[in-house]
C-alpha cells in the first residue's frame, strides 16, 4: 500500500492518495496516517488509485476516520475511486443508502456517488 498526504498551501486542506493493497496487512500503517492527518486539524480529501485488493479493515478505518473528522467539524471526503471501491465492498455489505446520524456533512464514505 502507498499512502501520500499532500497539504495544500494556506488552505488547511490536504489530499491523501492511496493505492495498492488495502488489506489487514497494511491496516496499522493506514491507521497511523489517518491519525496523523486528524491531529493536524486538516480537511482531507481521499483519492483512491489502482486498488489491488481491499478488505473490511479498510472500510472500518474509513468509517472511523469519517466519524473522528466530522466530530471535530472537519471534512473527510472519499472522492476519487469511491464507487469502484464500494462496488468491491458491496458483497460484504459495505455500502449504504444513506449516512449515519453523525454524518452531518453528508459525506459518508460508504454511500455511492451519483
Amino acid at each position, binding site marked *: 500500500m502507498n499512502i501520500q498526504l499532500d497539504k495544500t498551501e494556506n488552505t488547511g486542506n490536504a489530499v491523501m492518495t492511496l493505492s495498492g493493497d488495502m488489506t489487514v496487512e497494511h491496516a496499522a500503517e493506514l*491507521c497511523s496516517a*489517518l491519525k496523523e492527518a486528524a491531529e493536524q486539524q486538516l480537511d482531507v480529501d481521499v483519492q483512491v488509485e489502482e486498488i489491488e485488493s481491499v478488505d*473490511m479493515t479498510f472500510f*472500518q478505518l474509513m468509517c*472511523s476516520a469519517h*466519524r473522528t473528522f466530522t466530530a471535530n467539524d472537519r471534512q473527510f471526503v472519499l472522492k476519487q475511486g469511491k464507487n469502484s471501491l464500494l462496488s468491491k*465492498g458491496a458483497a460484504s*455489505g459495505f455500502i449504504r443508502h*444513506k*449516512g449515519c446520524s453523525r454524518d452531518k456533512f453528508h459525506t459518508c464514505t460508504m454511500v455511492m456517488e451519483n
Partner: protein
Amino acid sequence: MSADVHQEVFIQEATELLQELEESLLELDDNREDMELVARVFRAMHTIKGSGAMFGFENIAALVHSIETSYDLVRNGKLGITKPMLDYSLKACDIIKEMLTDPAMKADSPLALEISAFFTETGGQAPAKKVHEPVSKEALLVRQNLTTFRITFKPSPEILLYGSNPELLVKEVAALGEASVSALTTHMPDLNSIEPEKCYTYWEIILTTDKSENDVRDVFIFVQDESEININIIDDFTGGGDNLKRIGEILLEKGDINNEDLTALMDERKLIGEVMVEKGLVSQDALDAALTEQQHVRQIREQKAAAENISSVRVPSEKLDFLVDLVGELVTVQARLSQIAVKENNQEMLKVAEEVERLVWELRDNTMSIRMLEIGSTFSKFKRLVRDLSAELGKEIELVTHGGETEIDKTVIEKLGDPLVHLIRNSIDHGIETPQERIAAGKEEKGHIILSANHSGDSVLIEISDDGKGIDKAAVLKKAKAKGLVSEGTELSDKDVFDLIFAPGFSTAEKVSSVSGRGVGMDVVRRNIEALRGTIDIASVQGKGTNITLKLPLTLAIIDGLLVVIDDQFFIIPLSIVNECIEFNEAAHRSSSGRRIIMVRNELIPYIHLRSFFNIQSEAPEIQQIVIIELDGRRVGFVVDSVVGDHQTVIKSLGKAFKDIECISGASVLGDGSVALIVDVQKIYTGIE
C-alpha cells in the same frame, strides 16, 4: 432414449454452455473482481466436467478438472484472476469445442497439456475444500421449499487475529441462495481508540434459500464459539403476497425498538423509519438494514411469482424449420381455398375460407415469432474475435454492443455471421490505428468498435462503426482508376466512391495480412447481404471513422406481398415498400421529352415499365396500374397491367438453374398452382438510379 441421443443432448447443452462460458470469461477480463462472474465460470466448468464424464467425454472432464479447481480457489478468495488464466481458459474453450465434434480426440495435444500444466501449477496443489454450489436466481426461485432467513453475525473483535476471515463466511452464506448483505458499523470507535486489526463490524444477511437453518449454521461452525449468531425465519412464502412486514414491525421483531416507543411514534404519521432515526431511537444503520430486508422479501416474492409463471420447452431447430415449411404450404392451400370459394360464389364456403384465412394469418405470425432470436448471441461471439485480433495486431480495441435484445429470424442470424466477421476484421485491420498512430492523431489510445442493432419497420438495422482513420477516398479513386473501374476525369459522389469498395477484387490495403486486405471480401459481403434481401451502406469521414449500415429483413420465409399481373405472368412486390397504386394511362402521361416521369400530387416520380424491363413481348392494355414504391426516401413507379391485391407470399428459392437471373429474388406458388415471381425491387432501383 439411446446413449447416442443422450450424447447429442450433452453436445447441444455443452455448446451453449461454452458460449456462456466464453462470454463470462471475456466479461471477467474487464471486471476481474466480479465474484458473480467467477461463480458463473465455475458453474459452467463444473457442469461441463460433470456431464462430460457422464456421457463418455472423459477427455473433456480431464482437461476441465484443473481449470475448475483454479476457479474454485478464486471463488474462495484464495487466488486472483490473471490475464494468462483467462487466455488459457479461452483456449481451453476452443479445445473443448473440437472435442465435442470429435469425442475420440485425447486431451494430450501440446496446447491441452500446456493448459493443464498451467492450471495445475496455479491451483491444482491447493487443498480441497467443501464448497457450496451457487444456484442461479432463476433456478432458486422456482423451488418449492424456500425460506427467507435473517442471519445476524456478530463476530468476536479478535476474529481476524485468530486467522478467520468473517467476510469469506458472509460471502459463503450469501452463496447459499439469494442474499442481501448489510455490514453494520454502529459501534465503530473513533481513530484514537480503534485497533485497526480488530473487527468492529457485524453483519445482517437476509437470505432466501432452499437450505435449512442447520446448513446456514454449518458455515459458522469454526467461529460459533467466539461469535454471536442469530438465525430467524422471516418469510416462508406461505402467507400470500400482501402480508409484507412494515419497517416498524421488523425493527420491533429485531429488538431495535420497543413496543411503547413504536406506538407513540405511530401517532406522528411520518415515515416511521425517518422518525425513529430523528428521535435517535434507532441508528441509520439499523433502518438501512430493515429497509434492505423489506425490499429483499418483496423482490424475491415478485420474482418467484414471475419465475413460476415462466416455462419453456427446448425444441430442435430443424423441427421449427419444418413447422415453418408446413405453415408455408398451409398458406398456399388456404389461398387456393379462398380462390375456389370466390369462383364458386358459395357463401358457406366463403365464410369458412375467411375463417381459415384468419387462423392461418395468426398461425403464421405465431410461428414466425417462435423463430425470432435475439441478435445478442451473435454479437457476443465478436468480443472474442476483437480481443484475439487486436492482440495479434498490437492494437487496443474495445467492442461496444447495443441492442443485443433486437429479435430477428434465426435463418437471417445464421447467415449474418460471416459478413459481420468480415466487416469487423476490416475495422480492426484497416480502420482502427495503432496506439502510437492514435496518440499522434490526438485520439484516445484505445480504439472503439460499436456494433448495434435496432428495428426499423419490418427491417433490422445493424451498424458497425469505428473511430479509426476512416476511408481514404483519394486512395480508393486512385486504385479504382488503376483497375479501370473508373475513367479519368469522372466526378463521383462520396456514396459512389464508397460503392467502389464493393467491386470484385478491390482492396486499397498496401499489404495482405492474415486478417484482411486480400480484396476478396467486400464484394462477397455485399452478395451475402443481398442474398438475405438486405442492403449495405458505407459512410466515412477521413480521420474520424467509418460507419457501415446493414438493413436486413426480419424474416426470409413468408412476407406480405402485392400481387400484380403483366400479360399472363404474376409478379410479387414486397408490400412493405409499396406506397400506393394509381391508374395509369400511358398516352395521357407521355411527355414531350420522352422522359418517363409522372406527376402525383405535385411530385414528379420517375417510373419504369416492368413489361419492357422483363422483355414481355405482348401489347400493354390501354389502362394500366402504376405501383409506387419508396426506397431510401425516394419514390419510383413500376408500371404493371393490373393489381390483384395483397398476398401472403411464401418465399421459394428459384433453384440452381435460375440462380443467375437478376432482379428476381425468388418465387411463390399461388392458390391455383401457378407461380408468381418476386421482384427484386432494390436491384432494379439501383440499376435505374
